[in-house]
């Protein structure tokens, strides 16, 4: 283990760790990005499908015969 | 014409505030006691301090810390009271938003001025704070009080409409008050140490600029907060 902390080696280790962390974050971001886009598409589609409530009215006339 | 109307409405709001405060003395009693307690606590905790080059700065910092926390308790009340007593709707109908803001601002200013005078006197007596340039000291406190009031009155209106009121007031206003507070502490320290206007003018100017900028922004934004 001690060899990993040597002055010459440590900097490569540090770089590798940083690189792995970044690649992990990058992969995660790509996934989140795709999911967010998909979600937006779905919601927009749902909005289009959802029938806008068209105003409708029924008029009934009741005529009561008063004799 | 509309200016005259606005002024009359402002005066009405202000007079109303003063009247209800003088009737109950709710805010004044609580805050004055708070100020006395904190100054006494600070003096007891510190004991007599040696005269040194840093003493004016220490005194100025203590003075402004006490003033800041007293202001946190005193100035947050103006709009919260309206919500608690359910008079906000009536006030909304009775006066234009600008008049409400200006009236409340004036009331806060009067309250804070009284508080500042009280705290400064207590500090001089109990903390044995030496003021070498009294007139500059007074101007510095006045400019600082202006900054404090113009920075917090809009925040008071904001928190009145939220759920956790008193805690939120300090959280929201503190970051905005930091620039003003730092300038005020440095300027007051200069005044305590007896520096002349050549050194003290810059802090006063900064404080006044801060007060004016926040006052004008508040005027623009207040109607948005006040609308229901």
């Amino acid at each position, binding site marked *: 283990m001690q060899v990993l902390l040597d002055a010459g080696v440590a900097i490569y280790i540090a*770089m590798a760790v*940083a690189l792995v962390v970044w690649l992990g974050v990058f992969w995660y971001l790509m996934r989140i990005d795709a999911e967010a*886009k998909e979600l*937006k598409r779905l919601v927009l589609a749902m909005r289009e499908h959802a029938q806008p409530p068209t105003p409708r009215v029924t008029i009934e006339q009741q005529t009561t015969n008063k004799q | 014409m509309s200016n005259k109307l606005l002024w009359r409405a402002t005066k009405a709001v202000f007079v109303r505030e003063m009247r209800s405060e003088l009737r109950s003395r709710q805010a004044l009693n609580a805050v004055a006691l708070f100020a006395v307690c904190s100054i006494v606590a600070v003096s007891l905790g510190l004991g007599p301090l040696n005269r040194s080059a840093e003493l004016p700065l220490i005194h100025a910092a203590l003075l402004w810390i006490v003033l800041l926390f007293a202001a946190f308790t005193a100035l947050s009340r103006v709009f919260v009271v309206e919500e608690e007593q359910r008079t906000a709707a009536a006030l909304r109908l009775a006066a234009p938003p600008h008049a409400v803001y200006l009236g409340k601002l004036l009331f806060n200013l009067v309250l804070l001025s009284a508080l500042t005078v009280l705290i400064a006197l207590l500090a001089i007596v109990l903390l044995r704070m030496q003021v070498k340039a009294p007139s500059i000291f007074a101007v510095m406190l006045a400019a600082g009080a202006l900054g404090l009031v113009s920075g917090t009155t809009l925040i008071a209106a904001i928190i009145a409409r939220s759920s956790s009121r008193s805690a939120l007031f300090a959280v929201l206003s503190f*970051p*905005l008050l930091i620039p*003003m507070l730092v300038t005020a502490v440095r300027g007051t320290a200069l005044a305590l140490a007896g520096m002349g206007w050549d050194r003290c003018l810059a802090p006063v100017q*900064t404080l006044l600029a801060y007060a004016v900028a926040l006052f004008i*922004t508040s005027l623009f934004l207040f109607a948005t*907060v006040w609308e229901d």
Partner: protein
Amino acid sequence: MAERLAFTAKISLGLAMSGIIYAMFLVVPQYVGLGEAGRIIIVHVPTAWVTSAAFALSAVFSIVYLRTRSALHDASAVAAAEIGTLFCIFATVTGSIFAEVVWGTFWNWDPRETSILVLLLVYAAYFALRSSVDDIARKRRLAAVYNIFACVTMPFLLFVAPRVADSTLHPNCAFLQGSKCEGISLDLNGAKIGQLGDVVVELKSVETTGELTQARVEVRMPGLTQNAELTPSLDASGKPADRPEFPGQSFRMVLIEANPQAGTVRVNMQAPGTGLLSNQRTLWVFLASNLTFGFLALWLYRIRATILHVSALVETQEAH
């Protein structure tokens, strides 16, 4: 087409950032006095400016929101504020680590440190306000008002903070107006006492011996029981030769000008890494890093804004 372009952009961003990480450790040369810790500025500075840009963007969206009252604009303001907070934390942490390694203290109330802390507090207050208002429309309105109000105090922070400390360890003080970046002048026959940060300095003598012009300066600073004496010097061409360290610290005193006949000198404090960017390789990596971090922030903002927009859409749909 646009889809493919966006995908290419994202992949190149990923590659660019990997390149920056590689270059940061293996291309940028070590700088004398900073050691390996100097490499952190490659990520520290970009995160710091992205923070302020995100804050400004958030305030702009708040203004737009108050005009349009559209939930989407409020969502954009929130997204910008969130990204700003994230980068603000990065900038504070990386800066703090750098300060500990290089200046010898995690936190020394440097004007820049004060302003980034205030920015962090403002963001925190903004989110605290949002979480404590129940009514949705009112929450958006109040948060926008607070955001704009906070933005107005920011210039005061930039103008006021430099007055607090007359010199800063951060480079390019030209940005901080009013700060005495040029150091302080001391005169053997006049004002021979001055202040650099929280250090009091007193000029004892200034004389030329051979090639070197040397000043003897007495230093009094907090936490130091005895007064120390430093002797910074200039070489024959007028460049700083000896730059002694302040006792117990890792920043140095540097002599900028000296006139032995008149008995006047100009001294300043200097962080060990001053002049770092004069190296070409460092400069290019630094510029590329700024660009990459800018795009990264933009991408993060787009993702977050999309999610918030969708939830705003769903919210309004449910409300109807």
